[in-house]
């Protein structure tokens, strides 16, 4: 049995895997315009009551924004495949030099017939999480939680986006945010009954 730290969140468990590996690929933010480069990869595994077994990584590029992305779908249901294909989370630097994670949620799109990233309210997330998302996020280590206007003072068209600020490299907070907004949203068929 693994001695790694495991966090239980609703129907999921997150196993934080210690150590950093080298990852080779292209940053999402480069949008195909970059050549393959090496980055630092820290991984965590998300498993669920419905057989999801997904390896996810925090990729820290030398010259591009860090991102949380699926690395390998080791097991799961058909609907979990959407987690392997979509749902990466790109991070940006916050005003105070920490990391800002925008909390979009995997939501079923009736028009497209699959899950894509959408904005969601904390109430919607609280409902499928069956807990207070903000409270848990702060408990996990988030420094600030709210809309970008509230936590970053933004006034642009993205000011109402839900987001949280974490310390750079805080894998625990990021793994939590990824699991709630991606894995648990798909597991709970978020948007499917709407």
């Amino acid at each position, binding site marked *: 049995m693994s001695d790694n730290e495991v966090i239980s969140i609703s129907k999921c468990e997150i196993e934080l895997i210690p150590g950093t590996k080298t990852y080779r690929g292209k940053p999402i933010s480069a949008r195909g315009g970059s050549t393959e480069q090496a980055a630092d990869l820290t991984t965590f595994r998300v498993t669920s009551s419905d*057989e999801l077994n997904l390896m996810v990584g925090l990729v820290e590029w030398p010259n591009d924004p860090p991102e949380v992305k699926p690395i390998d779908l080791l097991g799961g249901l058909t*609907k979990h495949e959407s987690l392997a294909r979509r749902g990466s989370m790109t991070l940006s630097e916050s005003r105070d030099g920490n990391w800002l994670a925008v909390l979009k949620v995997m939501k079923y799109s009736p028009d497209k017939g699959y899950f894509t990233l959408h904005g969601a309210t904390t109430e919607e997330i609280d409902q499928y999480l069956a807990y207070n998302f903000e409270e848990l996020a702060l408990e996990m280590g988030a420094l600030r939680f709210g809309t970008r206007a509230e936590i970053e003072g933004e006034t642009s068209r993205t000011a109402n986006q839900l987001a949280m600020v974490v310390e750079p490299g805080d894998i625990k907070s990021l793994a939590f945010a990824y699991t709630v907004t991606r894995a648990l949203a798909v597991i*709970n068929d978020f948007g*499917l009954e709407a």
Partner: protein
Amino acid sequence: MGNFTLPVDNDQVIVLGIMSALELEAASELSMFLDNRFRAESHPEWFEDIRHYRISMNQPFSYKSPSDLRFILGEAVLEDSQIWHQIPKINQAWVNAAHTLRQKLNLLHHQQLAPNLQTLLQISTLFDQVTSGPGLEVSNWARAVQSRVKNILAGNYTKPEAEPAPVIPAAAEEVTKEYEEVIRQREKRPPWGSRWTGTKPSRKLTLDRQTQDIYDDNGVSVAEELGDLRDQVMAMWLRYFPLGGEVWVDPEDGAAMGYIKGTATMVGWFGAAPEDNSDTVRGFVLAHEYEFTGSDVKDLTLSINLANSTVEDSSEALTRLRQILEPATRLNITDFGDLFVPVSEGEPTRIMNLHKNVWFKGQLPG
């Protein structure tokens, strides 16, 4: 009166025991009450006289004792009943309560009442209504049970840690024994949409919404195995998994498990469900009373109509009911979706099986 047991939680044995003990106590007190009244009128052979009268009228009479509650309640609600006149404060509300209580007790004896607090509340309310008029002591117990159950359900009662568990009434033994097998079977094969508690079945099948087909682990189409049921099973599973998905099937009987919102759930059968072709009523009765109005089904508990309370269109089911039921027919439904007309004696027969989406929203499991 013997044990005055009150529930402290949702313990099935205690709940069943209290329901059963209330029945025995009410039967004993009611028959003694009637016996005293008839003896005061110099009519000690009243039970035998009623028996002879019913037989002379070519009516069925199988009761062997005046303390059989089914006899007392059944006789009391008849217009030509001798018992009717002996019960003080009798009115239509009493008659309705007696009639409903008799049907509920019949369900209890056919292991079709859910052994939970909601049912106990319903039963104890009926016992109170039936026994308080004649001033029977059991009505105090029934009221105490009602009050306790309401408090437990509202979260206003906490089970005492230091106190011993409530005494299981002796009357519970028989009824809980009868329920044991039913409960075991339900755990193995729960109602559709309920949590799957057994081991995971071995045969994995994949439902593909694009090809409207079902494949095994080798990618071979197996939908043809369903024969005439293919469309029905596809439609049922696509209701659960609109995007397609996986189900695991027990090769022995075809029971199917799938994950719904992360929870292993009973999602029906790969093939015909057992007793699909019979009229046997399966499952526990929901604690709601319904009436067919002639054009719609009314939930008498919530005062809402089926036609505008479902997820999917219920007109097909209502059309079928119009063809077979008279207006003002009472209805019950089980957590298996089996709809039936409640009866006071014998086993009820299923009218039809309904998916949760064509019944009142949120009432059937899943």
